[in-house]
C-alpha cells in the first residue's frame, strides 16, 4: 500500500460517488438519462466542452508526440480552436431542430432530418463501431497510467476492468448527469496537473519557458517548428482541418444536445 495507490483509489471512489449522486432528485426517464432534459446551463456546458479535449491523450499521446516530433504537435492547438469556431455555426441549428422534434441522439437526428429510420440505424452502428477503437485506446492509456502511477501495485489489466466497471455503473444509474459531474472533476484535476507541470518542469530544469525553448533549439535546431519534409506545413494544415471535422461530429454534436440554450 502506498500513497499513490490511495490517491488512485480516492479518485475512482470520487468518480463513482459523484456519478451516483448526480441522479439525486430526478425521475430518470429517457429524456433525463440521455440529454438531462436539456437543462444544463451555459457554465456547465462550457466546462464540458472545454473538458472534452482532455483525455488520456493529454498525458500520453500529446506529450509523447511533443517529445518525439516537436513542432508538429502544435496542430492540437489549431484544430481545437477551429472546432470551437465552427461549432458556433453548426451547433445552434442542430440544437433547435433537436429540441423542436424531441430528439435525443445523433442517430435520432439523422433519422428525423432525412426521414429514414435506416439512416438512423446506420449512424448508430457506425458510431458504435467507431467508438470501439477509441475506447480501446483510452482504456489502454488508462491502464498504462494507473500501472505506472501505482508503481505496479495495480496491473494495467485490472485497472482497465475497474475503470470500465466504474464508468459503466455511473452511466447506467445517472446517465449523462453522471458523466457530466465526473467530467467536471476530471477536467479540474487534469487542468491543475497540466498547468502545474507545464510551468514547473521548465522552471525547475531550465529556469523558465524561454530558457527551455532555447535549450531545445540548441540541442536540436528547428525542432520547435515544422520540418521541411514529412510533417511539414502542408501536413500541419491538412491534419488540423481534418481533426476539426472529427471533433465536431464525434464529440461536440452530443455535448451540445443537453444545453439549455442553443450552441
Amino acid at each position, binding site marked *: 500500500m502506498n500513497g499513490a495507490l490511495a490517491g488512485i483509489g480516492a479518485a475512482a471512489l470520487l468518480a463513482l460517488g459523484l456519478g451516483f449522486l448526480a441522479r439525486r432528485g430526478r425521475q430518470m426517464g429517457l429524456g433525463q438519462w440521455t440529454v438531462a432534459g436539456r437543462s444544463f446551463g451555459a457554465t456547465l456546458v462550457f466546462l464540458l466542452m472545454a473538458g472534452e479535449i482532455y483525455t488520456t491523450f493529454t498525458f500520453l499521446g500529446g506529450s509523447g508526440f511533443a517529445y518525439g516530433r516537436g*513542432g508538429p504537435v*502544435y496542430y492540437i*492547438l*489549431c484544430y481545437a*480552436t*477551429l472546432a*470551437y*469556431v465552427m461549432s*458556433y*455555426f453548426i451547433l*445552434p441549428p442542430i440544437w*433547435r431542430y433537436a*429540441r423542436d422534434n424531441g430528439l435525443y441522439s445523433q442517430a435520432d437526428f439523422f433519422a428525423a432530418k432525412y426521414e429514414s429510420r435506416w439512416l438512423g440505424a446506420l449512424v448508430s452502428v457506425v458510431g458504435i463501431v467507431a467508438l470501439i477503437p477509441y475506447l480501446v485506446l483510452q482504456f489502454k492509456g488508462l491502464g498504462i497510467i494507473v500501472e505506472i502511477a501505482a508503481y505496479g501495485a495495480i496491473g494495467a489489466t485490472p485497472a482497465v476492468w475497474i475503470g470500465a466497471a466504474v464508468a459503466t455503473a455511473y452511466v447506467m444509474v445517472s446517465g449523462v448527469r453522471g458523466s457530466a459531474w465526473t467530467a467536471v472533476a476530471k477536467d479540474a484535476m487534469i487542468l491543475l496537473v497540466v498547468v502545474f507541470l507545464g510551468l514547473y518542469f521548465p522552471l525547475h530544469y531550465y529556469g*523558465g*519557458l*524561454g*530558457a*527551455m*525553448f*532555447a535549450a531545445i*533549439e540548441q540541442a536540436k*535546431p*528547428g525542432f*520547435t*517548428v*515544422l520540418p521541411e519534409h514529412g510533417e511539414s*506545413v502542408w501536413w*500541419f*494544415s491538412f491534419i*488540423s*482541418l481534418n481533426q476539426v471535422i472529427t471533433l465536431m461530429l464525434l464529440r461536440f454534436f452530443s455535448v451540445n444536445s443537453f444545453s*439549455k*440554450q*442553443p450552441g
Partner: protein
Amino acid sequence: MRMVRALAILPFAALLIGPFFANRVAPVILGMPFLLAWLVAWIVLSAAIMAIIFRFDPQNRDDPS
C-alpha cells in the same frame, strides 16, 4: 449585421495558412519560438473575434428559450 460572421474566416486563415509564412524559430516572443507565439496569439485573437461575432450576430437575439 449577419456579415459580422465573415470575421470567422480569420482564425482559419491565420491557423491553417499562416504557418506557411510563420514557420520560423526567430524572433522569439515571450520565450516562445515564433511559430508557437503566432499560433498562441491567434488562439487568443480567435476568442476575441468570436466574442465580437456573438455580440453583433442577430441570431443571438431572436431565441426565446
